[in-house]
């Protein structure tokens, strides 16, 4: 019996070998040095499909999924309701099992939806152009910083300390290649010099709060540095787009647009910028054109930025990105639409504020940061954060992310439309019980 994924039968192989004039396929591997050929390799045994599903389902069961228990964990990945249509669409084989649309005549499905994605991202961010996706929000930000260095010819990158915990690390990793310096600045101590390529911020920031964007933008402009904003796309349905406050490049994580948490990936990085920077942009871009019969059609364009043409002179080495997730985000945005996306943002806003208000009323708890927040907020409690988290987990609640390195007994709590009032109330009651 053939393997189900390998159609050739013994007879097929015999016919091929006959045609090749060979007795066995071994001859085809003769270029492999003999002492390296066919080594002993220890792999676990083959499983039937039924056993495979059972084995992996068993491993899946070993995880605590934040459906039950309740979860208030955000910190860069957000639990939003994904309308059922999203998975039905992205699971269509025609989308899922195609590759990069290098042959536009038979790839309009991918190309047109990518153009939709670009368009929607431009609308959300207020920027002129967007690409079809980066690996994720962090690498997107890092590439934006490299791009700023390339645009400005400068070698220092400035990043606000209030950005996501991963951002600093990823930017430093990427910057190490070209040997750029990375300065991590406190929001109220931003001073940029003539060698700063950019100021990168996250807004709302890692803790959920809005930065003083006008002042920060001002500082960047004054220093001749690009102003790079990482923004959550759901927040943009409700709050001012970064274009409003002078962003040159806007990046973000598309995960909140209907992509499941999935232990951290696959997600999709958002990358948008000003029109005049487009030829410095990394990643794929789809443009609108027509075919010889005059039919509207879409095509990969401005490819002379890319590695397959420009090789070592490319704007980035990125090739395969996260197209299917960009499609998921596109279907999500289309399904919720103008009103639905805003509604989701508003639900998150009001529910988070309700939760913050209720928690702040618990004796011993307070909100160490004041200001407007979205998606999440920091609470300081009377207990060490790990202890608080552990007690709440025992009660079936994933309470949030430990930020006690920045705020005494700090816990970053996220509330979305997935959390009913009853869930928030249960969190509050459980917190009361824990500290009682």
């Amino acid at each position, binding site marked *: 019996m053939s*393997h189900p994924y*390998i159609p050739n039968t013994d007879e097929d192989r015999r016919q091929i070998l006959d045609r*090749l004039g060979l007795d066995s396929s071994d001859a085809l591997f003769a270029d*492999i040095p003999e002492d*390296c*050929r066919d080594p002993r*390799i220890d*792999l*676990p045994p*083959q*499983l039937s499909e039924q056993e495979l599903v059972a084995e*992996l389902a068993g491993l*899946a069961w070993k995880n605590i999924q934040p459906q039950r228990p309740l979860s208030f964990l955000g*910190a860069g990945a957000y639990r939003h309701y994904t309308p059922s249509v999203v998975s039905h669409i992205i*699971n269509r*084989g*025609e989308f*899922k*099992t195609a*590759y990069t649309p*290098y*042959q536009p*005549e*038979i*790839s309009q*499905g*991918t190309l047109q*939806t990518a153009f939709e994605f670009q*368009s929607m991202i431009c*609308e959300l961010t207020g920027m002129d152009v967007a690409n079809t996706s980066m690996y994720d929000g962090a690498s997107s930000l890092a590439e934006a910083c*490299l791009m700023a260095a390339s645009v400005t010819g400068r070698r220092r990158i400035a990043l606000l300390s209030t950005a996501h915990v*991963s951002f600093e690390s990823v930017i430093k990793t990427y910057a*190490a*290649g070209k*040997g750029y310096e990375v300065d991590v600045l406190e929001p109220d101590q931003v001073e940029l010099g003539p060698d700063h390529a950019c100021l990168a911020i996250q807004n709302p920031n890692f803790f959920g709060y809005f930065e003083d964007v006008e002042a920060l933008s001002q500082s960047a402009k004054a220093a001749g540095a690009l102003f790079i904003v990482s923004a959550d796309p759901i927040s943009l349905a*409700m*709050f001012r787009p970064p274009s409003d406050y002078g962003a040159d490049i806007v990046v973000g994580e598309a995960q909140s647009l209907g992509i499941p948490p999935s232990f*951290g*990936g*696959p997600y999709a990085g958002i990358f948008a910028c000003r029109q005049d920077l487009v030829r410095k942009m990394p990643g794929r871009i789809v443009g609108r054109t027509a075919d*010889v*019969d005059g039919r509207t059609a879409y095509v990969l364009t401005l490819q002379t930025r890319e*590695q*397959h043409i420009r090789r*070592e002179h490319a704007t980035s*080495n*990125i*090739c*395969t990105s996260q197209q299917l*997730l960009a499609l998921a985000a596109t279907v999500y*945005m289309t399904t*919720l*639409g*103008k009103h639905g996306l805003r509604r989701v943002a508003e639900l998150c806003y*009001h*529910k988070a504020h309700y939760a913050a*208000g209720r928690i702040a009323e618990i004796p011993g708890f307070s909100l160490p940061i004041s200001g407007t927040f979205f998606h999440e907020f920091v609470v300081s409690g009377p207990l060490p954060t790990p202890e608080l988290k552990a007690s709440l987990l025992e009660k079936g609640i*994933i309470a949030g*992310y430990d930020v006690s390195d920045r705020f005494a007994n700090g816990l970053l709590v996220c509330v979305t439309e997935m959390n009913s*009032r009853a869930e928030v109330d249960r969190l509050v009651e459980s917190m009361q019980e824990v500290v009682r």
Partner: protein
Amino acid sequence: MVNHEPGHDRVHPMARQPFETDMGDRLTFDLSRPGRIGCILPKLDVPEAELPQDLLRADLTLPEMSQIDVVRYFTALSTLNYSIDTGFYPLGSCTMKYNPKVNDDIAALPGFSRVHPMQDDATTQGALEVLYRLQECLAALTGMDAVCLAPAAGAHGELSGILSVKAYLQDRGEKRHKILVPDSAHGTNPATAAMCGFSVASIRTAPDGNLDIDDLAAQLDDDVAALMITMPNTLGLFEPEICRVAEMVHAAGALMYGDGANMNAIIGRARFADLGFDVVHMNLHKTMSTPHGGGGPGAGPIGVRSHLAPYLPTPVVERDEAGAFRLAAPAKSIGKVGLFHGNFGVLVRAYAYIRAHGLEGLRSVSENSVLNANYIRERLKGVYKLPYDRSCLHEVVFSGSNQKAHGVRTLDIAKRLIDYGFHPPTVYFPLIVDEALMIEPTESEGLENLDAFCDAMLAIAREAEEDPEVVKTAPHYSPVRRLDEATAARKPILRWQPSAEHAPHAKESGGPSIPRGVS
């Protein structure tokens, strides 16, 4: 419009009438009607908080559509795509093999898809175990000592690998500024080297398709940090002198970087570590069959020998004595390369794929992918020029230069294949082959499909002689025909606009001879 019938009864299943609706002309924004919505949202069940008026945005332009219209719009668009599920997709260097459906189901299990990346390790032991086991499998298959699964694609793996090399050399106080890359290499190799601050020097390919060892020797000086080499190379050929090459490189104090994107050819038969590599990246979306998704997601893990292990990106998964799994940062890690821990949903599928094969199954993968490529080589050679006339591994590269004599370019042949119901091979890559046609059938196709494809290729070669126009104006039966790519690049329209002026109607067929298909 030319409307020739291929001399063959296979026509592209997506063939359309020439005058049907201009689907590209109607985007969601155009279909939108105010007041529609595609999903019911919950009511607000808490008191309203005060809104920060100065921070709110005025308006947002997004489409408004009912659910049925969303479904119909995207369903219709999907049918404009060629895909593995709809036909043979011999796109060289891309390993377009069958993507098992069960792996999608597994990745979608709530116990995986709903797990949050910031949960404490104690609550994610199942997910961590999958990653740990996959690390072990990939280490076994490459012979490497340590594996990091964080990179999201091949190029991301290259970045991670070359940065690790850089950090390692820096730690040893070495100042090396150059990376050697064969002229047959994939574009991401030189691009990665440059992105990591290295200069790139090209090594010639010898007339037999192997590395020109003299050229290598000449360029191997103490400024060389590494040789980046693809095994088997993009010509589908395995470098027989690889062990000697590795010795030379190591002797020069440089490291061996392996681009493992073509690992399908040798999986279960040769290990990168044994061949002398210090670091290798793999493309799991190729070798391990995870769906390509129209351009990702992928996964590009790297494996390294022990001296590079401390430099691997963060995180890797470790197992403690008690058997518990945890995310960890290697001692001298280059840092994180992404927001969280890599494309978990892709990695789960790759693990499932490995388990569905076992070692014997994987050896059958490489055997059949190589048999299939050689069968195509044998059937087409003579008619199509074979620049390197020796047996190949998983893919075979032809040149369209015979056909060029009739004024038919490789791009035309590619487009004509569409009329015959096939996805074109990769074209104009590798760059060192004139009018390159790079064909990778993979092990997923049975002999009868190879024959149908070869029949079509031979029919097109005949057409190129007898009726070149029909080839040069192909495709004729695709949802759209050749595009005006020049105008697209010259006057880019990159987003929908309320009063979108349509692009000028193309009068000439477009398409420069740029590499197509090497993602």
